[in-house]
């Protein structure tokens, strides 16, 4: 049964004081750090002056290595849970975020960005290196040690391409 809907509830900034509420142990470890077959996805969040954004929060959603998007609980209490395909990381004082995860079989990480000074969430994607048909500019680079690197620029000459979807 549906009801009359007058319009979507607007977003508001996550503000500066969210860490004690939204960060939790293991939030960025979709698989344990260093586990066999794991990869680190990391990068820095910058503002329009190129300065780090130390009060941002990044979330990712992804398929497993076989291309299946998991629909299982356990993201908040990971111990004993399987791969949930979702994680969260608050940036540190250098604007750095990181995830320990697996390379998705479907070729991108779906990404949401929140920050103080950012009035509504932003969406983007991070594609695996070598993906055909990736959205321009949204491909991670492979570092010498195997980590995937993708920096996010909220503004400025290297501004990240942010996405919107029908019905949002």
């Amino acid at each position, binding site marked *: 049964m549906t009801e009359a809907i007058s319009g979507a509830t607007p977003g508001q900034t996550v503000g500066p004081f969210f860490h004690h509420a939204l960060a939790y142990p293991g939030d960025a470890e979709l698989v344990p750090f260093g586990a066999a077959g794991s990869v680190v996805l990391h990068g820095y969040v910058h503002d329009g002056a190129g300065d780090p*954004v130390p009060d941002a929060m990044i979330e990712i959603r992804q398929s497993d290595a076989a291309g299946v998007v998991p629909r299982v609980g356990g993201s908040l209490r990971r111990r004993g849970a399987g791969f949930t395909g979702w994680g969260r990381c608050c940036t540190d004082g250098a604007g750095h975020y990181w995830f320990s995860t697996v390379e998705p079989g479907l070729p991108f990480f779906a990404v949401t960005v929140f920050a103080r000074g950012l009035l509504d969430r932003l969406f983007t994607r991070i594609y695996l290196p070598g993906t055909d048909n990736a959205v321009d500019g949204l491909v991670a680079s492979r570092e010498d040690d195997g980590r995937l690197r993708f920096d996010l620029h909220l503004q400025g000459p290297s501004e990240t391409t942010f996405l919107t979807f029908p019905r949002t």
Partner: protein
Amino acid sequence: MTTSQHEISDEIAKIQADSPGGAPLLDFAPYRSTALRHPTKELQLVDPEGAELLAPVFGHSDVAAVEADLTLQRGGEPIGERIRVHGRVLDGDGRPVRRQLVEIWQANAAGRYSHQGDQHPAPLDPNFHGVGRCLTDDDGWYSFTSIKPGPYPWRNHHNAWRPAHIHFSLFGTDFTQRLITQMYFPGDQLLALDPIAQSITDPAALSRLIATYDHGQSEHEWLLGYRWDIVLTGSHATYLEPSDD
């Protein structure tokens, strides 16, 4: 010289006359911290694919029932006006968002967060952390018991005060429905002065962030009730329907 509330309110009025909108303007100069943190390029429209079509799933192993009562998490009773905030989470077609995670956080009754970064010289409450979680039920209902948060000063301009609010973090059925927002209280005189709330330049849209007093939820000699429903953007469920079988 620091900017006055009068100057900020003037800036807000000028922008609102030009661009009434239902979503917050990301480029909203009266909220000073947006200056270097809003994208200037147009958002690129894409069809959602793969992981974007499925929100993460949370269950009772993720959230304990006690996490919905913010007055029970420490040794004793927190100071302040005890409240219950309840409502439904619906998608853009009016369907309840079932068994999905709702996270909240807020300042205490004196207007201070239990966060190291908050150095506002108002007392911390040892019995109040101000963080809660719950799962919606099969009809999309959520409910939290808490303390009414106080307004607090911030440094956006001279004598700037945030209206009392509770931060809400929500998921839908699609990843693209992700929402973080703030719930305000009815009759708050600070709302009209607040650059964060007023970044939603359509008054009807802003009104959707304001709870209503709900006497039916108030409890005799115990607490005051508020109702606040949340409507996420539409889901893309139709994209999943096979077209050729």
